[in-house]
């Protein structure tokens, strides 16, 4: 519990200056939505170019498009949203009144916004935006090959955004480790909080490598002599990929946590295999810090076999997690809400991404498939058809808690099915294109290759995704305008965030229920049922959390 030290003096500054973790996270999500739409527009332009096999944009512009699309989606959309979800819900799930370090969290929001603006301002420079891919690898990103301030603005933008993310992760980590309510031991923390713990550990100890790499790149651009020749190219990418692999797990674990909560809630069962899942999470998140040079197999410089071993070993913890998801559904009392559908979509589609990842983890295969559309398909299945589906599930699940209003279920289901069709239509053909030898980051391809047909299919799919996003936005607008009140716990959920009002008050809880497991509200409900069963003459009036 806390008291206010200084009352707010300028109401207009509330959102920009508020130290309420819920407001900070909410602002971040709104901003991320704007960047998502912008990054999506770039993708539609790219897909138009590839469907037509040239003629829509110049090659230089195309290089800017995929650079900014990838950079926006990674640095400015999925990572910030993943962390913002933790910023909003970890304090609630552990029964805390505040995030640890509220001003640090606020600083993170500012750095995120400033970083995004900085990066995108590259489009307004004479040389255009950065065009050396979202990796910014040298020597292509050096001043001689990427002259102009667009590249520098990109470097600063990524640095600022990443610093903000590290600050957020530190706050969430501190909250989970030190601000839990009495009775909430580590082994009673909910699924989502555990996945955020793993995520934030990877962020705090993995992301600084990117800031170092970018600092070296900037120094090379303006002072020279820092990253020279082949060794310089290897060093930059070694640092980059030490960040670049964990970042994709930062874009995965929080959504695994959301999916876990959703499946448990809509199967009316506590999450199955909690302790095995926690161990798997520890193994998975640590292991994922050691697979990074599988992005460099085709250099032939680092120990390919070690990274093949660690990358393939990922099937073990991943398999445990899938087992637990399925076991939670088993013999449950299922409710097919939109959130549950998106969670199921995650399970199916992420699996495709994960299995193709194991294929790429084998150097003899990677030598033939690296840098091709097979890889593009793989990571879009994991990050879009996987994580983003988990994210939409989380949105449909938690929107009532955040806003106090329910999202429309029928529009939600339309959103879901359009997105399933769109995602698979766009990305499945790319597996075949990659296997046939179409490399990525090309603005056009030979007509004789016969690749245009599949490219047209993929491009049609991308526009179906766009329509599904419009349906989603319509759902949000309609649900906020003609509100259907949600109440504290519309879903009959298990965890503490549902034990307070929707939206929660400034300091989160008026009172906390007893915490005896990782599903305290379910415990209360089951105890009440038990009590009613033992005392049939007394009617249980239902449990209010």
């Amino acid at each position: 519990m806390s008291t206010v030290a200084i009352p707010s003096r300028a109401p207009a500054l509330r959102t920009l200056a508020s130290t309420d973790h819920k407001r900070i996270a909410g602002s971040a999500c709104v901003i991320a939505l704007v960047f998502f739409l912008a990054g999506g527009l770039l993708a539609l332009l790219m897909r138009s170019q590839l469907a037509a096999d040239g003629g829509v944009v110049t090659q230089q512009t195309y290089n800017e498009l995929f650079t900014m699309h990838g950079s926006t989606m990674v640095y400015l959309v999925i990572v910030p949203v993943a962390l913002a979800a933790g910023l909003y819900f970890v304090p609630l799930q552990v029964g805390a009144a505040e995030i640890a370090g509220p001003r640090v969290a606020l600083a993170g929001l500012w750095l995120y916004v400033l970083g995004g603006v900085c990066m995108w301002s590259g489009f307004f420079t004479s040389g255009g935006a950065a065009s050396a891919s979202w990796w910014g690898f040298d020597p292509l990103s050096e001043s001689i090959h990427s002259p102009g301030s667009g590249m520098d603005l990109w470097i600063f933008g990524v640095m600022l955004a990443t610093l903000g993310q590290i600050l957020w992760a530190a706050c969430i980590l501190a909250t989970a480790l030190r601000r839990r309510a009495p009775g909430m031991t580590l082994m009673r923390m909910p699924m989502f909080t555990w996945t955020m713990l793993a995520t934030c550990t990877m962020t705090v100890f993995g992301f600084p490598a990117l800031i170092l790499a970018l600092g070296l790149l900037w120094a090379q651009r303006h002072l020279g002599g820092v990253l020279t020749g082949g060794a310089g190219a290897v060093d930059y990418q070694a640092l980059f990929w030490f960040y670049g692999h964990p970042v994709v797990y930062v874009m995965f674990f929080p959504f695994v946590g959301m999916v876990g909560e959703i499946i448990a809630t809509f199967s009316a069962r506590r999450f199955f295999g909690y302790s095995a899942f926690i161990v798997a999470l520890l193994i998975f998140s640590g292991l994922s810090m050691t697979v990074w040079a599988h992005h460099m197999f085709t250099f032939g410089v680092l120990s390919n076999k070690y990274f093949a071993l660690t990358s393939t070993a990922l099937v073990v913890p991943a398999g445990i997690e899938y087992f637990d998801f399925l076991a939670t559904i088993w013999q449950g009392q299922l409710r097919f809400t939109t959130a549950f559908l998106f969670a199921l979509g995650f399970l199916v589609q992420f699996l495709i991404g994960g299995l193709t990842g194991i294929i790429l983890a084998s150097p003899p295969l990677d030598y033939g498939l690296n840098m091709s559309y097979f890889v593009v398909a793989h990571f879009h299945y994991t990050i879009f058809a996987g994580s983003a589906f988990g994210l939409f599930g989380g949105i449909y699940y938690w929107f009532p808690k955040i806003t106090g209003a329910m999202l429309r279920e029928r529009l939600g289901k339309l959103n879901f099915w359009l997105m399933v069709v769109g995602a698979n239509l766009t990305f499945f053909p790319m597996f075949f294109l990659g296997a046939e030898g179409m490399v990525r980051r090309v603005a056009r391809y030979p007509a004789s290759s016969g690749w245009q047909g599949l490219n047209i299919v993929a491009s049609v799919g991308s526009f179906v995704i766009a329509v599904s996003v419009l349906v989603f936005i319509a759902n949000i607008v309609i649900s906020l305008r003609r509100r259907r009140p949600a109440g504290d716990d519309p879903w009959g959920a298990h965890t503490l965030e549902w034990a307070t009002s929707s939206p929660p008050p400034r300091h989160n809880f008026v009172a906390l229920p007893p915490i005896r497991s990782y599903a305290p509200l379910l415990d209360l409900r089951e105890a009440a049922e038990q009590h009613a069963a033992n005392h049939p003459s007394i009617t249980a009036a239902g449990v209010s959390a």
Partner: protein
Amino acid sequence: MKRAAIWLLAWGLWLGLLTALQAAFAPKAIQFAIPGVASAACITSGLALWAADRNRERDERSRLITDSSSATGTLMVGVALALLGSGFGLWLILIGAGMGALGLGGIVREQRARGRTLRERDTR
């Protein structure tokens, strides 16, 4: 609360173990250096947290936080402008430094107000 550090220690040790495993694969130095630093940092943080929590009594009094901090935003804008200034000129670094100073000043003000409120609360 006292055993929270176990997460960081376990994670750091696991990463350290996997890093050391590379020795069987003729690694380059950089393969040890980067994850080794991360592992060491995690273990160190875990040890620091263990030490901090060992003697910590659960603080039952309420915490005092600043509800609204425009100084934070000012400071961050200053940081961003100073960073950009390294590429665009000293004038921008100076503007950034100025804003940063304003922001820091604001945070100092917030901290002093907090201290005043704490003293008032404790004397009541």
